[in-house]
């Protein structure tokens, strides 16, 4: 059974149909890429899956459970984490605090215990810090910037911090929205290395939106191509490179010129 299944997903804003009946199935452990021209509805799919948008029609099933009506934070509790196309970090916080809050759903202390820093809250914060350091900061090589305020960091590092924050949730499914957008060749290579590494170490299922075809072809097992809110093709990267519909969506058609 697939881990994530979208069943005939529709989403429209007023008269504009962002998604017009998309069905997808992502197998557990897969590295799934979603590609398509700008405005094809890729990010809308992510927003539906993470609960920011409510689809007008259709169902989203995660791990055998219908999550279409759940609130965003409830989906996070089920293990869905994501990054954003335009970095959505908490700019006023340090890198460490950004990563720490990623583990929010795993912390159980109440308000009183937190304010008194007593008993369970204090213990929990200490073990929490160690977990975060061991499993995230070390893994993504953030040690030297852990106390820096996020807003002051360069773009490439901010993207990595956002990945770190998503990983801190200990997700089952990781949604990456253009993880290498706006990066130079070296930064892209670093980012891809980190993504592949963490996906393997943490046995994640990854769904990625990406415009860098080199990255898509290299690391994904399966690709879905979207255009105008519809899925026009799905298959292995190699199949997609030869697919007539895909070529048409990206490059246009041959027109007989008289």
């Amino acid at each position, binding site marked *: 059974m697939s881990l994530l299944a979208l069943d005939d997903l529709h989403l429209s804003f007023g008269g504009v149909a962002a998604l017009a009946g998309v069905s997808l199935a992502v197998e557990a452990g897969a590295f799934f890429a979603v590609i398509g021209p700008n405005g094809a509805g890729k990010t809308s799919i992510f927003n539906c899956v993470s609960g920011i948008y409510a689809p007008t029609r259709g169902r989203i099933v995660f791990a055998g459970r219908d999550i279409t009506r759940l609130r*965003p934070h409830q989906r996070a509790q089920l293990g869905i984490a994501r990054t954003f196309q335009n970095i959505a970090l*908490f700019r006023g916080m340090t890198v460490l605090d950004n990563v720490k809050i990623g583990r929010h*759903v795993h912390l159980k202390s109440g308000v009183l215990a937190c304010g008194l820093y007593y008993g369970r809250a204090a213990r929990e914060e200490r073990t929490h*810090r160690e977990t975060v350091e061991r499993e995230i900061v070390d893994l993504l090589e953030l040690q030297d910037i852990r106390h820096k305020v996020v807003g002051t960091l360069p773009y490439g590092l901010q993207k990595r911090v956002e990945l770190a924050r998503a990983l801190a949730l200990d997700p089952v499914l990781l949604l990456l929205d253009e993880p290498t957008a706006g990066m130079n060749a070296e930064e892209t290579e670093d980012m891809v290395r980190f993504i592949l590494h963490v996906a393997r170490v943490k046995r994640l299922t990854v769904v990625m939106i990406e415009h860098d075809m080199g990255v898509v072809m290299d690391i994904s097992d399966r690709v879905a191509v979207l255009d105008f809110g519809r899925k026009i093709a799905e298959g292995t990267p190699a199949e997609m490179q030869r697919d007539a519909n895909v070529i048409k969506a990206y490059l246009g058609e041959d027109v007989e010129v008289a």
Partner: protein
Amino acid sequence: MRCGDFRVSYASDERIFETRLPPVALAALLALLALVPLVAGTYWLDVLNRIGIAIIGAIGLNILVGFTGQISIGHAAFLSVGAYSTAILEVKAGVPFWLAIPLAAGLTSGFGLLFGVPSLRLKGLYLAIATLAAHFITAYVIIHWERMTNGVLGFNVPPATVFGFPLDSDARIFYLIFALVVPAVFFAKNLFRTKVGRAFIAVRDRDVAAAVIGVSLYRYKLLAFVISSFYAGVAGGLMAHHSRIVFPDAFSLLVAIDYLAMIIIGGMGSILGSIYGAAFMTLLPEVLKLGATSLTGVYPNAFGLIASARDIVFGLAIIFFLMYEPQGLARIWMRFRSFWKLWPYAY
């Protein structure tokens, strides 16, 4: 001299105080503070008491506005609910003060919860207007519910008594106020190094990202209102005991603006900033008054002029801080400290 960062464990990195000196210095400061009533005159004791109350109120407002990003101009309303419920509980129901203040703070929390509900739908300016409505509704109820509040006249509050010992002078109420300021500061400080505080800041910085990470926006926005109004309730209760009278004009819209000014000047999203801001806003009129008194010999009308100058100076101070130091006095203090920390070896 401390010249570097020598923390070797995560636990030491999580502490509030970075080195051993600050807690010692703080304890010394508190001990000194405890001696103040023995030497200070009533005038400065009164100023200190008002600073103490303002600190609690300002921390409360900062938790809501500075840390959680939910703009509120309803703080005077929360203070008034705290003050009036403390006073009514004590005068009409005969509840002792040590029970009345927490009860009133609890009531104020409930009140905050109620008026926090619009924050689930509204943001920024719209929320500010909604909290303004809370202010006017509260003011209306206080003036017109005469059986309980005695309308525009207000009523007197008997002094708090501890084991039959009345806290009826500035010196005595001083200990009550600062016995509450210290835990109020530490509770807030702890809150912001744990889960709840981080969630508040996340809601302020990027609410969508916070929700996706697993922070329930409903829960934490309302929680910010509840905690903030609990602080306001305590501050209001102390106000009732400090001035020993409650009346509607003590909680005008200007009070709410004063508190906003405190956290802007002190530093939004900073506990220490709330303390600096509370001290600054309480001391500024006193300093102006002192200046006026010393001028009356030369220029007899100085006092009248200063009264209107107060508002102008406040306005200018707010504009100045918003433009040149948006992170307030807390930020100035941090720069000052980091300069002297390495002095004279800084480069």
